[in-house]
Each structure stands twice: as C-alpha cells, then as structure tokens.
C-alpha cells in the first residue's frame, strides 16, 4: 500500500474516533481513519457470541491488567471500537462529577451549559431509547428484587432504535457516526495498526502504520497529515504516544470499574438474547449493580470459577443469568510500553478499601438475587462458595480475597487527562497534547477519572466538543 495523505488522520474508530471523524469530515476536512481491527458489517455476527469475541475483541477478549489480583479487561478492536461490543447503556455525565473534574484539573469551557449542549447534540443525532413494552425477564428480575428490598432501581436508556414491531438495533458507531464520516468523504482504513506518531521538529506530521499481507508479512506505510488525532482508547492511546517518545504523565493514572460477577440460577427459564437494562441505583455512585451478557458461554465461564466441573449447573444454563456489581475504585494503574514489544503492559493495584467495597457490593447483589427468587448463586471467586440460602451471604465477605477473586472490567479511562493543571493532565482542556504541536487525543483517556457510570455518553459529548473547538481554531 502506498502512503496516504489527508488533512487529518484519526487513529481509532470507537466512541471518540468515530465522533471526531464525522465532525471533522462534516466540517470540510479531508479525514483518514486508521483502525486496527476489521470492518465487519454490523449484523454479521451474533451479539455476545464467541465468534464475535474472536472477531471484535482485542486478543479475543483475553486481556488483563497485572496486579494482585489481576483484572481481565475487554476492549473492542474493530471499526466502531467498544461501542460494537458493549451493552449500549447511555448515561449522561453526572453534573457533580463534571464539576469536580473541572475544578480539580482546571478544565476550561467545561461548564454544565456547555456539557448539556454537547450531550443534547449527540442525543439529537443518535437514537436513545428505553425498551418499548415490558423489559426482558433477566432485567425485570433486578427490578423485582429491588422492589422487594425497597431499593431504588431504574431502567437505563440505551443507544437503541426500535422498529414498529419492537425489534431493537443497537446504535453502534459502525451504524451511525462511521457511515456519517464516510458520507462526508472520510476514508476508513481497517486492519491497520498505528505503530508510531510521526513527529518532525516538534510537530506531528502523520502516523506510521503497518498491516498484515495475506502471506503473513507486514506491509508498512504512512498516513501523512498535518493534524493527528489519537482515539485508540485508554490503553492504546497512551501506548501509541509512548512508542512515539511522548511520555511524562502519559499512561499514568489508569482508572476503571472493577467488577465481580455472579451467575444466578432461577427456578424458571430466562432470556439470553439481550443485556439487562435495569440498574440498582440505591447505593452511592461508587457501587453499581446490574446484569451482564448471559449467553451459554458467559454462564459457563461464570460457573467455572465457583464450581468447576459442575455439569448439573451447566445443564441448567437456560435458567441461569449473569449479574454483576462494579465499583468506583480508589486504586490506580498504569500503561507502559517496553522496547520491542508492540502490546502495552497494563498494571493495576486495588486497595483494601476497594476489596471491601467489592465484597459489600457482592453481598448486596446476593440479597437482590435471592429476593428476586434465585435458588443458587455462583460468584466469580475460585472455589465459591456457591450459595443456596440468604443466611450464608456473610461468607462472601471473607471469600473476596486477593488470591481468589476473579475480577474483570470495562470502562477503562483517564490515562492522559485533560485540563490546564500541568501536574495532573498531559493534554490541555481540549485534548491537545502538551509539548508536541498538532497532536490531539480525543477518547476515554481524557476523562480525569473513571466516571462511575457507563462512559460512552461522556466520551461522545467530549469528543464532539473538542472536535468543534478544533474546527473553530485551526
């Protein structure tokens, strides 16, 4: 492949990259998007299937942050990024959190009015809805348990559109902002890794890329552009900058929402096609309870931790669904790249308070599921214990132990951070990287902390804001 030229090269096509590309292309710029993963037609794969994990997840979904315990994390690696694999939940950035971010990092033009404006803009451009009619049983059970316990619960809106016959379609980037970018003239280059940002005399001038040829050899080429946007997410964006010699704060301060799961068996069959849209909102923002994808594979994985080899439990998978509790952790982690290694190393350390909060969330989750009628609970803890009665929930406090607990996370954030406080933020208030001209980051790495809610709404609104600022100023 020969070298390409554009006004702007965007690395990545997820919630940050796709919104950036569409906004800039519609603003009249010649945009080229480099995406590491494949471009798969949105309806080609069954959602949450293993085929999908192979195709759309980084390392087939087998990525982990080092630490005690290690924490598995999932990232989309395809056109559309993680919006192709997430549950589509849409939650505006909480106002009080935005105010804290603004104050702590001294972020300019980050007032409630401005954020409202951009959230509304996104919401006008992409369909957000609640389920028409009754929610699926897996979701209704959350509401049922919460009602019994007197806890608050809510159905979250999702990036979904519904046809008149009630069929829902997730509004992923590959269905929305990517086609818009293409319609406005942007080129999408899939299956292509960004190796390094080209920097010449202190200015970014493009991106060095490589792609596999059918014979297995690497083909290398460059995308030359006077403006570079890095939107690879909170792991890949800092890794790319570090490989390009840009370090300092880049890669520090990784945050996410450590999550522990429970497979819950009920005395009746449960739906497995969708992800529950109800959330328990009873607890402070550092503790969330909700439902996960529950295909046969997910159920099998969840049971394997607590009761390996329990065939009877596996046979009951049609009556079993997976739920989770996630926390806003006070620990933090870091992303760094090692010479000669393309994949970054990710490490994260949980505090004792984090583990306690996870245990508390798990006990609450157990209460909820028993109240909803569950007859057996399989926590993602090596060796369980599997619980069949509420009276044994107390045993989960001590079972949540560094050496036994099996944690995962999505919602990785805050490895670069935006703001005027140079001791905290590697990017300015609009995502421009300090120290290198013409280089921007515009994705979850900019969030000053993990947000405690599903982050895609915040990522899209902030990406839109920063892209508008770019158009107005360059």
């Amino acid at each position, binding site marked *: 492949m020969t070298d390409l030229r554009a006004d702007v090269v965007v690395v990545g096509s997820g919630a940050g990259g796709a919104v950036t590309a569409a906004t800039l292309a519609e603003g009249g710029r010649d945009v080229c998007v480099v995406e590491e993963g494949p471009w798969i037609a949105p309806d080609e794969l069954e959602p949450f299937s293993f085929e999908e994990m192979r195709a759309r997840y980084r390392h087939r979904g087998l990525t982990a942050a080092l630490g005690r315990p290690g924490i598995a994390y999932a990232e989309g690696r395809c056109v559309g990024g993680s919006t192709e694999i997430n549950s589509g939940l849409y939650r505006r950035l909480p106002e009080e959190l935005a105010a804290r971010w603004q104050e702590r990092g001294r972020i300019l033009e980050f007032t409630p009015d401005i954020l409202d404006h951009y959230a509304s803009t996104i919401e006008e451009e992409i369909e957000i809805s609640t389920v028409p009619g009754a929610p699926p049983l897996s979701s209704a059970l959350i509401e049922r348990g919460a009602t019994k316990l007197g806890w608050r619960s809510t159905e979250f809106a999702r990036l979904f559109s519904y046809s008149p016959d009630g069929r829902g379609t997730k509004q992923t980037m590959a269905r929305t902002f990517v086609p818009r970018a293409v319609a406005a003239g942007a080129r999408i280059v899939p299956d292509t890794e960004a190796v390094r940002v080209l920097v010449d005399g202190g200015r970014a001038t493009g991106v060095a890329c490589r792609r596999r040829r059918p014979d297995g050899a690497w083909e290398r080429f460059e995308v030359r552009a006077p403006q570079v946007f890095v939107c690879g997410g909170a792991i890949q964006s800092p890794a790319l900058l570090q490989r390009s010699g840009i370090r300092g704060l880049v890669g520090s301060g990784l945050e996410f929402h450590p999550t522990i799961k429970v497979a819950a068996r009920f005395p009746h069959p449960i739906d497995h096609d969708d992800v529950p849209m109800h959330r328990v909102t009873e*607890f*402070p923002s550092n503790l969330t309870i909700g439902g996960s994808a529950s295909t046969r594979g997910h159920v099998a994985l969840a049971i394997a931790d607590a009761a390996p080899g329990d065939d009877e439990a596996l046979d009951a998978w049609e009556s079993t669904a997976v739920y989770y509790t996630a926390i806003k952790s006070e620990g933090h982690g870091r992303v760094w790249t090692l010479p000669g290694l393309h994949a970054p190393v990710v490490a994260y350390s949980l505090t*004792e*308070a984090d583990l306690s909060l996870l245990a508390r969330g798990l*006990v609450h989750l157990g209460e909820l599921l028993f109240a909803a009628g569950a007859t057996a609970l399989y926590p993602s803890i090596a060796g369980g214990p599997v619980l069949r009665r509420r009276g044994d929930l107390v045993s989960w406090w001590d079972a949540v132990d560094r050496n036994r607990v099996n944690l995962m996370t999505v919602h990785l954030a805050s490895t670069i951070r935006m703001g005027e406080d140079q001791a905290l933020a590697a990017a300015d208030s609009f995502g421009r990287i300090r120290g290198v001209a013409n280089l921007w980051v515009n994705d979850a790495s900019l969030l000053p902390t993990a947000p405690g809610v599903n982050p895609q709404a915040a990522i899209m609104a902030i990406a839109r804001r920063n892209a508008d600022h770019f158009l107005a100023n360059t």
Partner: protein
Amino acid sequence: MTDPSPGAAGGPAIVTGAAGWLGQNLVRELGPRRDRVRCLVRDEGERPLVEVIAPSVEVVVGDVRDPAALDRLFDGAASATVFHALGVVHAAGRTREFFDTNVGGTDLVLDRARRTRARRVVHVSSNSPFGANPSRDHRFTEDSPYNPYLAYGESKRQAEELVLRAAEHGDVEAVVLRAPWFYGPNQPPRQSRFFSAIRRGRFPIVGDGTQRRSMVYTGHLVQGMLLAEGVPEAAGRAYWIADAEPYELRDVIATVRAALEAEGLEVSPRRPRRLPLPAAVLAARADAFLQARGRYLQAVHVLGELKDTIACDVSRAREELGFDPSTSLLDGMRASIRSCLDRGEQL
C-alpha cells in the same frame, strides 16, 4: 441520669456493638428504662455481658456484616431508635477490617433501619475523619473539613457519609456524633494497659506533653446519644461530643496518676519517660507505610498519633442538644479504674 426526651422515653432501642466499651455503658442506661433493648453482640461469649443488665435486654448474636443476623436484630422492632455504637477501632493485622465492619456494617444497618422504619439512627463517629488540628489552639467544629487520618479515619469518614446521605435522601432520620478518645467503666483490656503503664511510670510523654487532646467520658457520650435520640431538630445533623474542654496530654497523665492513688493504688515515683518528637514522627511514617500496604500494627499507630493535638469544640452540642458534660476527668478516670479493679484486673 434523667431521660432528656420525654417523647422517646420507653421506646424500643436497638444497640449494635452492645458488648463493647460504649455499648455496655449505653445498655446500662437504657436497660432499666426501656421495654425492649435489642442488642447485637459478636459471639455467645459476649452474651452474658449485656444479658445481666436488665430483663428488657434481648440479645442477638451475629456479625454486623451478615444480612441474616441484621434481619434477626431488626425483626419485630419497628420504629425503634438504632444506636449504632459498633466499630472496629484497632484492626487485628489488616486494614481491610476497618472497611468491612465500619463502612459495610453501617451500610447494612442503615438499610435495615430504613426498611423497618426505625424512628432514628444515632451513629457514633470519631475524630479520625478530621485528622489532627493545624495548631495547638485550634478546635474542630462541625464545619471543619474532612481530612481522614489513615485507614480507620477513612473508614469512619465513609460511614459518616453513608449516614448523612441516607438522612438527606429521607431514607431514615439520623444523627452523627463525633466522639474522641473514650474513658470510663467497662473498658477493653488495651485501656487497662494504659493505666498500668502510667502506674509504672512507663507511659511516654511525646515532646513536651503540651499537645491537647479532647477526651470523652463514656457517661458524657451516653448522655449525648440519648439527647441525639430525643431532640427533634438534631435530625440530619452532626455533633462533636466530648468533655467540656480538651486537656494537655501531660495533664491527662498526671490526673490518671492522681486517680490511681485516690483508688488506693501505689504509683511509681518515676517520672514519665520523655520521648523526643522525631520518634513519634517516625512511628507515624511507619504506620502510613504499613497501612498503604493494608497492614495495621496498633502500637505503631498509637505512638504515631501521640504527637498530635486532636481537639474539638462542643458548643453546638451544648446549644442544640442541651449537652452538659459535668463529670471531671479525675472522677471519670476513678470510675474507670474502679471498673477494672471490680473485674479483678491487676493494673
């Protein structure tokens, strides 16, 4: 003591941590005056400590982290006042216990209080969410900002926030009482070691001993809890509850010596050891280092804190609750020493 609140007199009470230092003092006050005092104790061994107090006392044995134990504690006790006196002050080795019990336990207690429509929750907090005073003459007020001191302080801060949030959301009426270092009858063995070290002239004075400490006689704290239960306007508020004025640490030690002598115990003529300030600073650093790794050593923690002034102002409790801390340090310490001697302890 007369019940300060006719409205609450005789109402059912739930006491967590009932066999603890504060819990026992509270149950002794409540037991004879209430029809029902539901008490949570940790194990069967603690049951007799509260069961003997009055026929109104009903004991529930269980872990505050156990939803099923809390169901038993709250069962049939609708519209009770919940005195949440339970807390881990010194963990056995790991800081995790502070969070599990102090934060997790409070979360579960609040949830049950809300579900059973408890009349009010009186939550016992601490000075530790506020750290040390910036100068010797400074006093914490209810408007002082959080500045939690290490894991215990952080756990008590989080617990306070849960209580105040529940009150704000209208889940339950609640009052937060911030109590510093206790003294008084029914003290745990660690406090007997304090008397015994002073008696032998082995308790160290860090620096010149003029750092100030607010302390609270358990009788004063019980008085504060009953007032917090009864005063309607206290709902959703926090109060410092301590003796009238803070003491200089050297005066505390001199008073304990006098109290020991007044109770007929011979006190070593040796003057207290003086420990240079840097030793306590070093201990505080070691404590922070260990706690960052989840480890807790009580002796190191206590030594590290001895250098600080931790003093509060009880004006708001006086004005709004009618709080009147009238027992002197000497009398309170004497009551405390007598309680040790009555149990047959050697000081």
